[in-house]
């Protein structure tokens, strides 16, 4: 008797695992989200998750998506990649094979988005990364052609690197620049190299080009070298968790020139971690919350009401990634993976929170503009726009 009861309980448990938390309240559009909820950049993951939940709730509260007369609810499957490439891959596999999602949003950092994109591409499932700016995410490493199923909601590093280089030369009037970047990270390395070539092409000179590896905390040797080279500006295309250490150590060594950064600075955690040390510095990013369009203002208010904080660029881009995806599902009229992909590639133009975008012919990279933000009184303030 006991044995049968145990067996029954066990089979029940197994059935529950395989059915997932089945929602039987009607047809759904299943969307996977891969976010960096733990690991070295948890603020990025949290923004991504918050914006995804907000986007899904807005549609569900309005009754759902109307596809062929039926109302479809959005159902999210959120996976934590723990800030690891291999966990991004297994999360993508799980979402595609086990949860049977229509499309995946995320991961955000390029070093996780690139491996996850390989899985999505080979499984023919749409993956839209909100924040990965490296060209490799949407390009096939072997053929150099665009991947068919990978899209992004942000601009790319070649564009951003040129924007920052131009800003340093024209606005800061710097002729000599130094760069310190993480050589082990796809994103940092790519943008540092583009900055260098763009800066030198336009007549500047990169006097120090220094590297470190992920998780390093001591940059004193490299910064001492930078100080000796005498730059007029220092470019740090590094994550918000590392930049505070770098500027603080630089200040302690007596480096007084301005520091500039890229969109990896764009979390409010940067100011929390660095305090006054980053005051007055500039970085390029995707949107400015204080110079928003009416559509963006609506999103910012909803986000603030829900999470009690101003959405950062990751949140805005995740929201836009959902906007793109939902528009694609609508125009496809069904939740078929291939149909959604074809509809997404054909979107003529999308007005998102982070600006207008449209995909280049046969590519998952949108054409859109960047903004330069200045850190003023511990807040990010709009400083300039930069168009492609």
């Amino acid at each position: 008797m006991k044995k049968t009861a145990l067996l029954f309980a066990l089979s029940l448990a197994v059935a529950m695992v395989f059915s997932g938390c089945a929602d039987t309240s009607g047809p759904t559009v299943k969307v996977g989200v891969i976010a960096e909820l733990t690991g070295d950049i948890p603020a990025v993951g949290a923004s991504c998750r918050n914006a995804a939940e907000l986007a899904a709730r807005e549609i569900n509260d309005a009754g759902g998506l109307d596809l062929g007369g039926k109302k479809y609810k959005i159902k999210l499957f959120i996976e934590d990649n723990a800030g690891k490439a291999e966990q991004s891959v297994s999360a993508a596999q799980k979402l595609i094979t086990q949860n049977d999602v229509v499309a995946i949003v995320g991961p955000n950092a390029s070093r996780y988005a690139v491996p996850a994109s390989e899985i999505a591409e080979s499984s023919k499932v749409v993956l839209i990364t909100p924040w990965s700016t490296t060209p490799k995410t949407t390009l096939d490493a072997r053929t150099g052609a665009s991947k068919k199923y990978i899209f992004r909601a942000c601009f790319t590093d070649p564009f951003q690197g040129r924007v920052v280089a131009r800003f340093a030369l024209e606005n800061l009037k710097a002729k000599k620049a130094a760069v310190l970047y993480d050589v082990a990270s796809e994103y940092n390395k790519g943008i540092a190299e583009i900055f260098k070539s763009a800066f030198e092409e336009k007549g500047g000179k990169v006097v120090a080009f220094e590297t470190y590896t992920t998780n390093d905390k001591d940059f004193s040797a490299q910064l001492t070298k930078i100080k000796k080279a005498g730059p007029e500006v220092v470019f740090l295309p590094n994550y918000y968790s590392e930049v505070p250490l770098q500027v603080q150590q630089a200040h302690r060594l007596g480096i007084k020139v301005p520091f500039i950064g890229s969109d990896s600075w764009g979390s409010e955690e940067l100011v929390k971690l660095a305090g006054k040390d980053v005051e007055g510095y500039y970085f390029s990013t995707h949107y400015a919350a204080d110079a928003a369009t009416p559509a963006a203002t609506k999103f910012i208010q909803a986000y603030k009401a829900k999470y009690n904080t101003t959405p950062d660029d990751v949140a805005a881009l995740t929201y836009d990634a959902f906007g793109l995806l939902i528009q694609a599902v609508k125009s496809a009229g069904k939740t078929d993976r291939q149909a959604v992909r074809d509809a997404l590639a054909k979107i003529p133009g999308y007005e998102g929170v982070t600006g207008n975008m449209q995909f280049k012919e046969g590519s998952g990279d949108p054409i859109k503009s960047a903004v330069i933000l200045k850190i003023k009184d511990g807040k990010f303030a709009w400083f300039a726009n930069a168009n492609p």
Partner: protein
Amino acid sequence: MNYLLQQLLNALQLGSIYALIALGYTMVYGILTMINFAHGDLFMIGAFLCFLAGVTLGLPFVPTLLLSMAGAAMLGAVIERLAYKPLRNAPRVSPIITALGVGLFLENFTLALNPYPKHIAPLLPTHIWTVGGVSVSSLQAIIIVLSIFLMVLLDLYVNRTMTGMAMRAISWDRANAALMGLPVDGIISATFAIGAGLGGAAGVMYGLAYPVIDPYMGIMVGWKAFISAVVGGIGSIHGAMLGGFLLGAVEVLVAAYFPSTFRDFVSFSLLLVLLVGRPYGILGKPRPQKV
């Protein structure tokens, strides 16, 4: 010349932290011939205790330092009792695996509490003195002086006190030391506590010098301190200090005079070559085989 002096100062700061952590590895190895791979994570716990005491509770520097050292020391002793003591007569690989497990536990426990990196606000006013083009911050001076002070204190303790003598006796021959009536378990606990306490102190100083801390910060620093201990001669206290300063100096100077991409590659190649020539480390001696 100024440039070299500045880099040497950088090296001294990094090296003194490596040396403090290396002492923990070397003491545990000396007494148990076991490598406590959780030691780097005890260092991380020290930094988080510094955050709790100094930032959350708002204590000044000295109580923060003492609390963090005491907390790490207690944790070190508890870990020894729970995780290593039951394995004292097990095959030698078992406690090493347990140590790796304890390290992962500490990392993920801290991570589960809160995954966000923490910022340690300065607990001390920072002055920067510029002497002939070389910048010295007061923090840098405190780190170097305090580390050297702790190392001298440890050296005196091990060589001049009864407990220190007992530690040396146990490291020489544990079975006979027990027969002579030494409280072996107590002394082993004390060794762990002292090693962990020094690791905690290193965590505080590291947290002040590099004020963004996260649960994984102990891994790389722990490995580097472990390498310092081996290069200096594991089991030897002077060796651990020498090894720590040596690794700090090699790392900083390689980055100073080569492209910084080569830093870890060149510095660890140098250390490998050194170990091929002196497999017991600079100050290490081969242990006599007991028959």
